[in-house]
């Protein structure tokens, strides 16, 4: 693998890291958390071309098939103008070949899984995917997130990869972002001018693009306390059983008013079927207040299908993806209902 030349900066504090990000903005700077996505992005291709990291995205509201090149920013992009490949342009400003990497490895305060007094969960952005995978707390209360961790990459990737990195990279297929959105997660972003919290669903803005500012770092992710009679699940559909980017990923969180009663609340998040992970709002309309049965669940699954905006790419066609959104949503709703029943 051929990498470009870069310098590595090692901040001792989050503030220092933010300063580094803003100081080197002009020369190109990127964060090094686990490095598992970063290395892939930094790799210099032999043949200049678009490397398919589009993850089934489209920026077109009607789901028209867009080629990757059409997705690319205009020629005015400085990277395009300087002869950079289409690929680097696609990745957005933070994905350029950087002169500096800011390695976060000394920021231990960003690691760890913490149960909060209100029953919620705080996970530091630098927490490894394997730590999340192994956490009994996560598996018990936020099952979809544990299942996202199970499905991500391989054991080696999970040991290095971080929750924050997976979410902050804003890939439409990110296995941790999709459950985080369904679970109602909130992201804490810290920058020179202070700290702000933002719902995970509002974070991504396009493939590799997000609302994060140049000098901001994602520090922790907060998951609300599980409510009674609730549960969650995630499923990743792909061509093999590990080391995959999903063809479709679906996360479902659902709460009942009472055992056997109507749906109090539901959130379904869809991965790899749009430019960003999609929170399927229509499912809420279709299911909240209804007693779950095969008919209402099917209506909900069809609603999810209607919210998907996939394209054709090398991982799968839009035709297949929308069907799988429906199928997987239906299955996961059943799975979650069973989990709620079984946990009584």
């Amino acid at each position, binding site marked *: 693998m051929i990498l470009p030349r870069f310098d590595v900066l090692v901040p001792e504090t989050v503030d220092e890291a933010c300063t580094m990000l803003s100081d080197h903005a002009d020369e190109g700077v990127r964060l090094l958390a686990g490095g598992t996505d970063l290395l892939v992005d930094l790799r210099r291709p032999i043949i200049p071309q678009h490397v398919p990291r589009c993850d089934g995205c489209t920026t077109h509201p009607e789901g028209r098939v867009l080629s990757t090149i059409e997705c690319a920013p205009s020629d005015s992009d400085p990277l395009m103008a300087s002869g950079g490949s289409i690929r680097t342009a696609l990745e957005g400003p933070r994905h350029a070949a950087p002169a500096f990497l800011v390695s976060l490895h000394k920021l231990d305060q960003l690691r760890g899984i913490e149960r909060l007094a209100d029953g919620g969960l705080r996970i530091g952005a630098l927490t490894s995917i394997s730590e999340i995978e192994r956490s009994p707390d996560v598996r018990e209360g936020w099952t979809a997130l544990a299942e996202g961790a199970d499905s991500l990459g391989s054991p080696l990737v999970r040991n290095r990869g971080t929750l924050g990195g997976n979410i902050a990279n804003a890939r439409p297929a990110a296995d941790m972002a999709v459950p985080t959105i369904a679970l109602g997660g909130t992201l804490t972003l810290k920058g020179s001018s202070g700290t702000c919290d933002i719902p995970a669903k509002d974070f991504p803005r396009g493939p590799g693009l997000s609302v994060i500012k140049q000098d901001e770092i994602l520090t922790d992710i907060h998951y609300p306390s599980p409510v009674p009679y609730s549960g969650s699940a995630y499923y990743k559909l792909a*061509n*093999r059983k590990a*080391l995959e980017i999903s063809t479709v990923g679906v996360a479902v969180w659902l709460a009942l008013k009472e055992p056997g009663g109507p749906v109090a609340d539901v959130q379904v998040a869809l991965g790899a079927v749009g430019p960003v992970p999609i929170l399927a709002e229509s499912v809420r309309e279709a299911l909240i207040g209804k007693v779950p049965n095969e008919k209402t669940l099917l209506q909900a699954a069809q609603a999810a299908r209607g919210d998907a905006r996939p394209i054709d790419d*090398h991982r799968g066609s839009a035709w297949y993806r929308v069907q799988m959104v429906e199928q997987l949503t239906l299955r996961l709703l059943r799975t979650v209902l069973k989990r709620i029943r079984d946990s009584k």
Partner: protein
Amino acid sequence: MSKHRILNTRAPRVDAADKATGKALYTDDLKRPSVLTGAILHSPLAHARILNIDTSRAEKLPGVKAVVTHREAGTTPYGVSPARYDETVFCHDKVRYVGDEIAAVAAIDLDTALEATSLIKVDFEELPVVLDGRTAMDEGQPQLHEMYKNNICAQVHWHFGDIEEGRRESHLIRTDRLSSKMQDAAFMEPQSILAETESSGSLTMWSSTQAPHYIQRTLAMALNIPLHKVRVIKPAVGGGFGPKASCSSAELATCLLAIRTGQPVKLTFDREQVFLHSRARHQFFHTMTTGVKKDGSLAFLEHECLLDGGAYASFGIATIYYSGSLLGGPYRLKNMKYDGHRVVTNKPVCGAQRGHGAVIARALFEVQLDRIAEELGMDPVELRLKNVMEAGETTCNELFVSSFGMREALEAVRDSAAWKKKRSSGGKTRRDGKGIGAACGFFVSGAGYPIYRSRTYHCTVVTKVDEVGGGVTVSSGAADIGQGSDTVLAMITAEELGLNLDDVRVLSGDSSLSVDLGAYSSRTTLMTGHACREAARDAKKQILEAIAGKLEVPAETLDLREGKVVSLAGELDFSRLRKEYLQEHKGFSDLPDTPQLTFAEASRIAFLELGTIVGTGKYRPPPLGGSFKGAKVGTSPAFGCSAQIAEVTVDLETGEITVGHITGAHDCGYAINVTQVEGQMQGSMMMGMGEALMEQIIYDNKGRIVNANLAEYKIPTALDMPHLDAIIVESNEPNGPYGAKEVGEGAIMPVIPCILNAIYDATGVRIEELPVTPERLVAAMQAAKSRRG
């Protein structure tokens, strides 16, 4: 109880510890003083005329030692088959695929070399491209090569027996189709090359290659160097599977850079370059029409095949022959017609890959047999058993099978997998998401003829007895590329000389040691095994004759066993010899005090008598095959055969396929090393499963590979692997050493079709396009549903 002490055991591989601990040296590990780094400029365009190449800026970059193009390399055509020399070291008139080599640079480090390649300015006139093999032959298509009219690189038209008679005899005739995608062999070690010259004008190249001898010849020819001054050495190699069996532009370019700079030059491929260079599995489009009689016996096969081979010929001419010839068995088939076309397109070049041209053809034929069984209401295994050939039979295309455990292999997997219990009777399918399928296949045990026209020995082996006594050194040009041939040579030598494995040193993979055609066509155990046995026996004879002379007994009464000289005719008085040996070794410990003369003593005394003791062995197959055009491809001194049963679970809504179990049985004649035979079978099953379900090179509309990396080019992971059972069948091949024949490639033949047949059993739908991704399966299931209404 085996008749052998070393052979037919699970002896650990001689290189296992070195590879497990990282001590084994691959080409990229090798260090030379003042070594330069090489880099290649690849074409970014799939088809273009080269108007001008300006290297001046690259040459001026500090740290650059040489920049070479066709101007320095010349334009001597080379390739694999002398009938299709269509490549030059660098492109000079046109580029024909994205990745085609235009220039190379040697510099003080990789960064400088890469920067220099980016400074080479090439003016192109872009030409229209041919990307679809199916239309490449059409009128008005852009032409890649002047020598290939209508982009046809090779064609084969065969007719054995009488198809029309076969039609008349047929009770049932059906036509089926299957196509595949270009593939990558996905070996672990990317190609790596280190080249160095000496003041005498000699050239040494270390390379991750399967075939030092062929590479030596191509380097000498294309670079115009006397053959004897070119030495090719193969260090440890991390897999080849075919693509490393021919000389590459990168090898030629690295040698040229070493010659021009007078310094060693190393060039190692990035994984993307492995995909660009490719030379892996072709894309196949097969159509087969098969007729059977009422009782299920085969009446005829009419077979059409189109091969998309990418931009150059490579092994393609052999590929197209193999696609047709290896359907001659393993079933009795009197009438067979084959029409094959290999076309060139503006894509990376296809060549040989495990199973060569026969794999996708075999897949379709075995799928078709299941469809026929279903229509006849016969059990698919019974249909096969009814047709299998037996030892001593000859196929319609004149392939003679001297041993053939096809029936035994098929019965073994049928019984081991409890086929009769799991499979519905009468060829009916289950269609409930669970399925079981069977298939067979066979393959050559070494190509009957070399790639260049010659009556050369295919291999020679020199076994030299240590002059100090005690051990032997086996020297061979054979290429251990991870398949374990060094272990096989050590085991054969130890067996013959009555030694332990660690008393045998194997030197191999070096063109200066001996002629050996290399690791391809599953040839090494049979062919180099023969030569190795002969060399060991020659050395043994010399030792025993010397000792017999000293002891004044007939040599025939002596033998070497378990490190000792044993007498078959009463006790020996060897005290004089022992005394001499002990006198030589004053101060040594562990001196022999056994009641028998040791091998160390005997080999030392024999040296004192004779001087250097060298045993030699050689092997060349007898003339094989018919006299029709192309009859030589597919011939072999022996044929291995394989049967497998796959059990799958299909998610009928998402199309996800889980292969739960594959039971395989392979007739390898005689297992020299039991563990290695099983390893080849397991590796074949894994590779075939990837081809069946995951593997495909994907191109964009400019001929660029979209998935030129192992993240997006999918091969099975550990989690995808089913439970594997490997059953060894031993048919005692008369033409093989100790009865041994191949297992390296034959075991891949049944994998794809047994999985496809199991998927059909599970779903009731056939797929006509590989790989069977979940999406393709869902599409096929929905299409079948709408047809049924």
